[in-house]
């Protein structure tokens, strides 16, 4: 459409062939990536009995049925899981962003005597850790967070790479703004919350998204620390349904012969219900995520 600015020479046959092969390969990649998700969507909307008798690919729901979704939404564990996950995402992400911003701001100061030692203390943890068991004993027993929501929120309060990303962004804020604010009598808290954070909104968005998605998808801390089922996040409920194939409390009214068929559609519907929120907002937020990865890639 627009005249090419870069030099473009006539292509050889091999180059054109490569170009076409490349497009074909990318199309295949799109199919391989999307089709499993589409299959799940089609299957979740299918009639359970028809689906159980069906072999091979699906190109649409087999006689539209919302039966599976009705059962999923009537399952109290799914609803509790959803509510708990929302709580963990909101509370966890709030703490994450706050702590990360504090650390990033302090470590972006230029004249701090202890800056390099503290930075070393922090970066070292990216390469060496005490391991799973000492962490488990510390969090669960020493700190008594076993079977409390704290265990899912506090131990992961800061992800080091995110702290580095945010510090990189803060380093880009002009020092003059800082000095001007200080002359006007602003203290560090004012400078952080009134100057740095507002000027770094894209990065704050990236942080919220990275931390938020991590909380939404996390299951391991919950599996290790939580015993009370009422505290389970959605992913732990999903694990029971998808991997342990436990669909009993959604099929109590079903004759034993149909449990399998309905159980299958329930699994598919559960995947959709648990994944849809993230997949629906993702295309709109994609550029922020990508931005975060790119800032993280800058080496200091």
């Amino acid at each position, binding site marked *: 459409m627009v005249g090419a600015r870069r030099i473009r020479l006539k292509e050889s046959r091999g180059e054109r062939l*490569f170009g076409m092969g490349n497009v074909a390969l990318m199309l295949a990649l799109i199919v391989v*990536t999307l089709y499993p998700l589409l299959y799940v969507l089609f299957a979740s909307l299918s009639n359970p009995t028809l689906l159980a008798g069906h072999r*091979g690919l699906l190109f649409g729901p087999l006689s539209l049925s919302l039966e599976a979704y009705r059962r999923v939404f009537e399952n109290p564990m799914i609803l509790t899981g959803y509510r708990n996950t929302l709580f963990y995402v909101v509370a966890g992400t709030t703490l994450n962003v706050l702590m990360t911003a504090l650390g990033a701001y302090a470590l972006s100061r230029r004249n701090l005597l202890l800056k390099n030692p503290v930075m070393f203390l922090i970066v*070292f943890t990216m390469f060496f850790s005490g391991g799973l068991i000492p962490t488990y004993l510390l969090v669960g027993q020493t700190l008594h967070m076993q079977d409390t929501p704290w265990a899912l929120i506090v131990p992961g309060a800061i992800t080091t790479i995110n702290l580095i990303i945010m510090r990189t962004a803060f380093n880009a804020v002009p020092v003059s703004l800082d000095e001007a604010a200080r002359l006007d009598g602003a203290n560090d808290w004012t400078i952080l919350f009134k100057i740095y954070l507002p000027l770094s909104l894209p990065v704050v968005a990236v942080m919220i998204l990275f931390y938020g998605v991590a909380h939404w998808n996390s299951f391991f801390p919950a599996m290790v620390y939580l015993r009370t089922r009422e505290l389970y996040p959605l992913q732990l409920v999903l694990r029971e349904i998808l991997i342990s194939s436990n669909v009993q409390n959604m099929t109590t009214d079903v004759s034993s012969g149909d449990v399998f068929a309905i159980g299958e559609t329930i699994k598919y519907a559960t995947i959709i219900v648990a994944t849809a929120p993230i997949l629906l907002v993702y295309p709109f937020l994609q550029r922020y995520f990508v931005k975060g990865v790119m800032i993280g890639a800058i080496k200091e």
Partner: protein
Amino acid sequence: MRTAAGSLDLAAPIALARRRGAWQTLLRDLRRNRGVYLMLAPVVLYYLIFHYGPMYGAVIAFQDFNPVKGVLGSKWIGLQNFQDFFASVYFARLMVNTVAISVLDLVFGFPAPIILALLLNELRWNPFKGLVQTVTYLPHFISVVVVVGMLFDFFARDGLVNDLIASASPTAFMQSPEWFRQLFVGSGIWQQVGWGSIVYLAAIANIDPQLYDAAKVDGASRFKLIRHVTLPGILPVIVILLILRLGSIMSVGYEKIILMYNPLTYETADVISTYVFRRGILQADFSFSAAVGLFNSVINFGLLLAANRISRRLTDSSLW
């Protein structure tokens, strides 16, 4: 290792400070920047408790740890736990499985995003390029529970994959040890190839367009441009990520394996970290599993140092 390296890093500011009266300088700095230090305090405290706390806790690897008596009251037994692990029947299997999965992932999983980035860069029509990117980034946001749930479904004996193969004797992939590694690494690539390509695309975008123009004037073909301009342009990024990857060759994540494996597939699926999880958390054998974990951490750290040193010698890129 920690104290040695730590004091090295502390040396410069402290030596400087000593000349002017170390404490006075430090105190003056603390006073002048007390607002900043107040903000830094919770962050440092967090790292000390939740990262350095477990490093201290790892001493139970040298004890016969009893949770009631605590770290200070438990009996010290030296290297007994480590000797038990090296002598155990599982040692060889765990090492082989960990390295096998890592190497498979290194050979197939590491180049995949690089190749995708190079191919994406060759697409001429930007809307299509954007579509491929949006679609391939998508699986990164699906939780590991859902991905493994889908694997169980698609690769079941009566699942979609067996339907498509249409063999007379369907394979129960998820229960077959010989299929575990392929499924683990393959699903990892499916999930991460697009997301992993972002870094390389960013590096490609930073290559000076004049380099391409100059090469074209010299008559370089499309393949020569990739080979002699694009690849060298992203080589530093490749090297850095390769060092990090080599440094974690002995650490295969337990989260996905715990969801994927079962006793039928342990012989190829059980890795060091999953073994630590079972022995430590499920069987409450704390000291022994802490020793296995510490052994793993130390090897990882050593590999990282070695990879970094080699890279610094062979290329100009290194982590530090």
